[in-house]
């Protein structure tokens, strides 16, 4: 009896440890706005923790007077498996208009992929991107453009995370500069995908 109890105490943690070592997470969203008065994300999809796929679409999106977007879709897929784990986040949008035309694009795709072999953002793209009146094609990862009086935008933002990657195709950081220095007021993110496996 004592031996069985001892074995169970040894066995249970080892199984739990094995399960902890295999995770696959993925999520994606079309548009997210976070300010003092607005906190909205749509459409959003998060892969089930037990493995599987989730999807959501929002058609046309309008958030306050900050963002409009058409044909917004989010798909997230993740499976944890010994040696075969994979996770993919995928967000796509049609025409996008941010801050009354300050930033526009006719197509946004964000794809984050994680496997046992690594993480990548292949397939992500921006179509007909115009920032503050300037056309930009295929911006390099983490391209920052200042937006006078507004803050700045990071294009094709790629952030390495623990065992994964986050891709934000358009990330506007709203700022105000005053006597106390520069203050961040909020964020607008359009086309986001995240994935990780371990």
């Amino acid at each position, binding site marked *: 009896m004592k031996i069985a109890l001892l074995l169970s105490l040894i066995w249970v943690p080892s199984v739990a440890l094995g399960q902890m070592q295999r995770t696959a997470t993925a999520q994606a969203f079309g548009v997210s706005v976070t300010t003092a008065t607005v906190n909205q994300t749509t459409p959003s999809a998060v892969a089930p923790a037990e493995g599987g796929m989730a999807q959501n679409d929002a058609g046309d999106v309008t958030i306050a007077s900050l963002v409009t977007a058409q044909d917004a879709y989010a798909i997230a897929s993740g499976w944890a498996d010994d040696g075969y784990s994979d996770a993919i986040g995928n967000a796509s949008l049609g025409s996008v208009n941010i801050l009354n035309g300050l930033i526009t694009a006719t197509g946004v795709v964000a*794809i984050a992929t994680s496997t046992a072999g690594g993480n990548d953002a292949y397939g992500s793209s921006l179509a007909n991107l115009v920032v503050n009146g300037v056309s930009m094609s295929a911006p390099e990862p983490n391209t920052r453009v200042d937006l006078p009086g507004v803050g700045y935008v990071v294009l094709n933002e790629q952030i390495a995370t623990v065992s994964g990657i986050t891709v934000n195709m358009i990330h506007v950081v709203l700022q105000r500069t005053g006597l106390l220095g520069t203050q961040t007021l909020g964020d607008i993110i359009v086309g986001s995908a995240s994935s990780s496996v371990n």
Partner: protein
Amino acid sequence: MTNLRSLAALTATVALVLLASSCDPRGDNAVAPTIGKPSYHFDILECRPFKMTGGGRIDYPPGTADKNPPASHEYETFGAHVISEPNGQTDELGHCLGAKGSLEWVDHRPEWNINGRPLNLHSLEIRWADFATDTDCADGGARWGGILVIKNTGQQSQFEVFDCDNGEPGAGHDGFGIRLWDFPYEVLCFDSSLPPAEPSCTLTGGNRQLHPTH
């Protein structure tokens, strides 16, 4: 059994290609230009437990490993997974019954904008899944299908996919293709010069992952 199934699948493939071509309401050819002779992979199939997961992007046409110019909007995005649990039964075409999973597919091409939205396919049921033993997919290939709904119109259709895990990264290596049986739509790449096994189209983003057992 395998030969009969292959013959049935080949016959069905030819018939469906002819049907899809004759039903195309826009009068253009939905199949990518053929370079070389199609080798009809995914025709030697067997019932086996497996799982295929992932998703991503295809730039079709042409369906190569290169992205089309983003402004062209010539691309498709998707997520798909299938879990094959053969129950010992087959359908009239010899496909292995006992499968589950899901498919979500969005075609962003302007010509496939239906009722003001990109063509959006959503699976209602995954019915069958076959493990393909005749592909050059390094980690494995599968052919599976079921019933989906075209969300733009509410119409339902049978469908099948050609699914290929050909190493990593998935972009530039793995493949995926889809064909509807009751609606004139397919994204298939009959091009023997493209990786991986035709008629799947090369992924330009994402990954397909074969899990040999589940």
